[in-house]
């Protein structure tokens, strides 16, 4: 394969709040104890990363953003639409005019214009991109973010390993912990920017709550002494520690604590505020954060919807990358911009674009990424990939490798060794440092 790079929908019933976060973690412990995932694999294995914690920030453009109106414009073609291309800091590479700030900082991005992921229905496509694999009846694969959260977790951290933000109608789906079990499920922020039920129960002071925890720890340690090495007990302790930590971290979710200037820089759109929160969480030590910005599914009036969505994306992402960089976090944070698919070259009778998986784009920045890279190419009308075709597994392998995780590392699931990225996948080395 020739590869070219230019260089330079749900309800509230599954909401994870404090209590369900705890029960999920405990359930996961049970899985670990009874042979779901091998113990060796269950231990975070990227020890060198502990010295310099790495993070991943997923920007999930739910519904399928248009590559034509973002990363791969086709000006003057029947498929191109009315937006013009603009030059970027990468000579010879243009993006849609709706992304002027992105164009000016393209030296930070690596763009992949050659995704062919074949599946163009929302749910299976989202599963594919999120796990890097087609669904299998025999095994429930975890979302890449869950795997990354597990792999990049900081032992004894009081913070959740993974926080996922979306509105129930927006992100379309919750990250699936799959065979890693419920203890690795992310903390979901679905109804707002703060976890629900994070406060102390009515009538209980913080001191009383701490005393209760001490008592629980005492009883637990005595119990553990009689059952040395019990992972179940270890899991319980870890879960309680996380919940207590989450309660102590309430301030992290309070954007009022950010200077007004910073809040204004991010803008007051929901996406802007979510990305600001994402930065706060990463800065505090959360390993993986996902921000899902929805309603890219522009079957009608595609150009009007992208006029609204892309400038917001452009502005917020530019502020976010600058902010991460200024705080010294960009080098250690992999930022990934993904959708479940792109949009059709053909403009339909409703002036919309439909789902299209045969030739579309995604983007990376930050940790491990060679900024200023453009990988792969589509034909003049954006209908097919003509150079550097990659699939969902390659994207997963690239993400793992970018943060220093061997994509070929295996989990032992029952009797079956399961590599982090699907067999035969290849990381896109051209965009990696």
């Amino acid at each position, binding site marked *: 394969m020739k590869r070219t790079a230019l260089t330079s929908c749900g309800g509230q019933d599954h909401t994870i709040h404090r209590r369900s976060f705890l029960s999920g973690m405990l359930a996961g412990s049970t899985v670990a104890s009874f042979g779901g995932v091998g113990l060796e694999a269950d231990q975070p294995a990227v020890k060198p990363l502990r010295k310099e914690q790495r993070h991943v920030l997923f920007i999930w453009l739910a*519904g399928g953003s248009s590559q034509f109106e973002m990363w791969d414009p086709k000006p003057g073609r*029947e498929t191109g639409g*009315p937006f*013009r291309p603009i030059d970027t800091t990468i000579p010879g590479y243009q993006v849609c005019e709706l992304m002027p700030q992105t164009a000016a900082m393209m030296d930070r991005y690596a763009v992949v214009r050659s995704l062919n992921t074949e599946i163009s229905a929302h749910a299976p496509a989202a599963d594919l991109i999120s796990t890097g694999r087609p669904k299998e009846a025999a095994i429930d694969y975890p979302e890449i973010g869950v795997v990354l959260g597990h792999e990049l977790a900081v032992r004894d951290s009081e913070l959740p390993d993974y926080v996922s933000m979306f*509105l129930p*109608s*927006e992100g379309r789906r919750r990250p699936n912990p799959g065979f890693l079990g419920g203890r690795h499920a992310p903390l979901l922020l679905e109804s707002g920017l703060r976890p629900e039920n994070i406060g102390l129960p009515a009538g209980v002071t913080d001191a009383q709550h701490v005393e209760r925890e001490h008592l629980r720890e005492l009883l637990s340690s005595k119990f553990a002494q009689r059952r040395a090495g019990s992972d179940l007990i270890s899991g319980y302790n870890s879960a309680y520690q996380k919940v207590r930590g989450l309660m102590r971290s309430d301030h992290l979710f309070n954007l009022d604590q950010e200077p007004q200037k910073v809040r204004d820089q991010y*803008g*007051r*759109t*929901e996406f802007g505020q979510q990305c600001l929160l994402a930065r706060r969480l990463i800065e505090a030590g959360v390993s993986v954060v996902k921000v899902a910005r*929805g*309603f890219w*599914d*522009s*079957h*009608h*009036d595609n150009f*009007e*919807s992208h*006029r*609204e*969505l892309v*400038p*917001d994306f452009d502005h917020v992402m530019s502020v976010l990358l600058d902010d991460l960089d200024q705080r010294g976090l960009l080098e250690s944070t992999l930022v990934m911009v993904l959708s479940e698919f792109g949009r059709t070259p053909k*403009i*339909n*009778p*409703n*002036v*919309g674009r439909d789902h299209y998986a045969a030739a579309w784009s995604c983007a990376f920045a930050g940790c491990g990424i060679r900024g200023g890279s453009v990988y792969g190419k589509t034909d003049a009308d954006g209908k097919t990939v003509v150079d550097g075709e990659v699939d969902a597994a390659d994207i997963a392998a690239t993400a793992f490798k970018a943060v220093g995780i061997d994509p070929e590392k295996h989990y032992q699931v029952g009797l079956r060794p399961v590599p982090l990225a699907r067999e035969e996948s290849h990381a896109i080395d051209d965009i990696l440092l």
Partner: protein
Amino acid sequence: MSSPEEKKTFSPSDAKLLATYEYPQILYASCLDPDRRALFVGGSDYAVYRVDLAAEKPAVEQRWRSHDNYVSALTYHDGVVISGSYDGQLIWTNAESGESLRGVKDAHAAWIRDAVLARDGSFVASVADDMLVKLWDAKTGELITTFAGHERLTPEGFATALYAVAISPDGTTVASADRIGHVCLWDVKSGKRLRRFEAPTFYTYDAVKRSRSIGGIRSLAFSPDGSKLAVAGIGAVSNVDGFVGPCRMELWNCVTGERIAACQDKHQAVLNHVAFHPVEPWIVAAGGGDGGGVISFWNRQGSSSTHLAKLKGHAQHFSLDAEGRHLYAAGHGGVQAWTLFPREG
């Protein structure tokens, strides 16, 4: 030729499709040359086309390509076609020869959405996403005045659009309308804003369920006596991924600033163009959406609607001849020619 009595009793349900003039892309604009019975259309391939309606087999034939983006507005006066485009230009072109007569390169700093000619042919009014209304001398192309006052962002902080403009029959008032449902009336002589209506139902933004906007007032039309303004678009949308909401038209009293009527139809579509039909009591509108493309007739009291036809794709614009006998709907895939008085033969 029919008698006036016949016209007064015409029924939209009698209308018949005469022909379809195919065009492979999307047409956004149209205008008629009444003398030569020619229809001009333009759209997504940047070109202006002519349909010779007097020909035995009319066809969409390219005449000129002088814009650098979608052609979004066409108006005809005295042998000249004035075109507006998403490239921000207004261009005057000899309708017969295709010779470019004059152009205003930066007429607007954003997509021109609409441009209309005053009935007396003295000036053109244009609107664009720079949220400005501009009046131009129809002969010389000189800028006469600029009206500013539409919000530059939606209440949620996103880009908005200024879709629609209309000129009162006496040429004294210009109306403009935007994506968030604001309508402004401007006094041509003084340049002052006379009135501002808010018609928020045309704009959907549900911050809880679906945080993306959709809709907007897509077209305006003054009544023949100038006292009323028809405002067209789409009602509350349930799914912003598409035009999943009812066709909506409102009638406003231009003098008092009161809404006279609000009418919706169960057909799910946005109405992209509206006009008062010369024959009472009809207002004609066209558009498209989840329910498919549509041309519909509405009672001037806004109390009921009668659908004329469902189309293959969105109708973006239409032209009516002076007597309202023929309607030419331009949109996805070409032009549909309808006769509204089929009994005339």
